[in-house]
């Protein structure tokens, strides 16, 4: 965790999740798991956030919302897809109003499978994302492009 020199903030959006993963994302912030001790705060403002946590799958209605949030975030940033629905659509992949995982819309850096994903898994995914964020940041310093 030595690369954690800044406090990375997350923004969470429920794409079309059943709530299971959403409440587990919130559970990560509360006393038992308490990721706030690492300075990770759940913010509501995309412009304040470094990590975009998406739960659930994509549909026509929420496509624009996800794109909007992603485009408003400062770069470099990372996207974490939480739950099997965010990965592939999960049990709902055959539903008429599910287009598939979040990866079809925006580039996803870390996938956390599970139904519902457990807080330990989510924290693990976010820690992996922090490594990727750090690498992207260093690349951007070298003058490389970041996305």
């Amino acid at each position, binding site marked *: 965790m030595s690369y954690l020199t800044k406090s990375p903030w997350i923004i969470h959006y429920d794409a079309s*999740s*059943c709530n*299971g993963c959403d409440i587990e994302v919130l559970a990560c912030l509360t*006393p038992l798991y308490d990721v706030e001790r690492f300075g990770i705060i759940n913010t509501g403002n995309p412009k304040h956030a470094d990590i975009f946590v998406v739960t659930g799958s994509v549909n026509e209605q929420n496509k624009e*919302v996800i794109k909007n949030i992603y485009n408003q975030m400062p770069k470099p940033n990372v996207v974490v897809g939480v739950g099997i629905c965010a990965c592939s659509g999960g049990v709902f992949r055959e539903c008429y*109003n599910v287009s598939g995982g979040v990866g079809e819309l925006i580039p996803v850096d870390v996938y956390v499978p599970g139904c519902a994903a457990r807080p330990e898994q989510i924290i693990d995914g976010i820690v992996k994302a922090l490594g990727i964020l750090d690498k992207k940041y260093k690349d951007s310093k070298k003058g490389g492009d970041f996305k």
Partner: protein
Amino acid sequence: MSRRIVVPFGPQHPVLPEPIHLDLVLEDEHVIEAIPSIGYVHRGLEKLVEKRDFKDFVYIAERICGICSFIHSVGYCQGIENIMDIEVPKRAQYLRTIWSEYSRLHSHLLWLGLFADSMGFENLFMNSWRIREKILDAMEETTGGRVIQGSCKVGGVRRDISDSKLKDMVKDLDILSSDIEDLCHVFFDDDTVIHRTKGVGVISKEAAYSLGAVGPTARGSGVSTDIRKTGYVAYADLDFSPVVETGGDCYARCAVRARELLQSVDIIKQAVDAVPSGDIDVKVKGNPDGEYFSRVEQPRGECLHYIKANGKKNILRERVRTPTTANIPALVKMLGGCEMADVPVIVLSIDPCIGCAER
């Protein structure tokens, strides 16, 4: 008359864990009208009955919502069992009751936390969720899952709880109930909470009834309605009465849920005392043929599962009427005339579960 402006609220909003969109028509700081629009989390899972057989669909029914998960699976299984005339063993019925009440405890604690968060009381939010983790631990030990349990099936339940474990669970609940009482004390008596909730979002008994409000939203306005009193699963054998408050404001709705925490603990204790020994499931043969309305009491209110089958492996139609859908007209009524700053508290006070409502 001052100029009217429209302020969008949601779908992505700091206070909402889930996306719902409200167009708030404001005149100065007062909300004149609220126009809800939904559809952000619609998946269309009712249609999946065509692709999954009726036993398999239990797991889809459970994933209608991750908070009310267990009770949805009870509602669905109950419908199929009634169509097929399956006699579910008593022990399974009691275990369903115990897990249902655990779900209610975890849902209400979750809601109390979110409600505290909506009025900016961060400490109370954290404390509610700290207590909730103990409930989830018990769920995980007995079912294997924290929020999605997968332990209910057509014809009974998939896992048994040993009698010694049941006794341990009651012991844990005894310790927990003093924590819960402390928590309730804050929600009942704290100045901050009273200031933000008393007299906010008032809905009269008549309005709540005529708009079809259900669950704590209706009970907070003095309408005594509780589907558990119809005696599904093992509720007929247990002694309890609906928690009713008469204030009709956010404070009353909060008080109903806080008091229901202690009621749920009591119901679990009664159920553990009375749980009979025996089988936990029966073998299911054949396919369902017929239709049934199954009613269950979710943490958010009455939930209907309509099931129609024609003797095939796949049922014809499954339709769910969720409590949030029933409570939205009441919410729109509450929002009329309130102040803009109170909108998050009022929206949260019906315990909106958009995942359920849109499916």
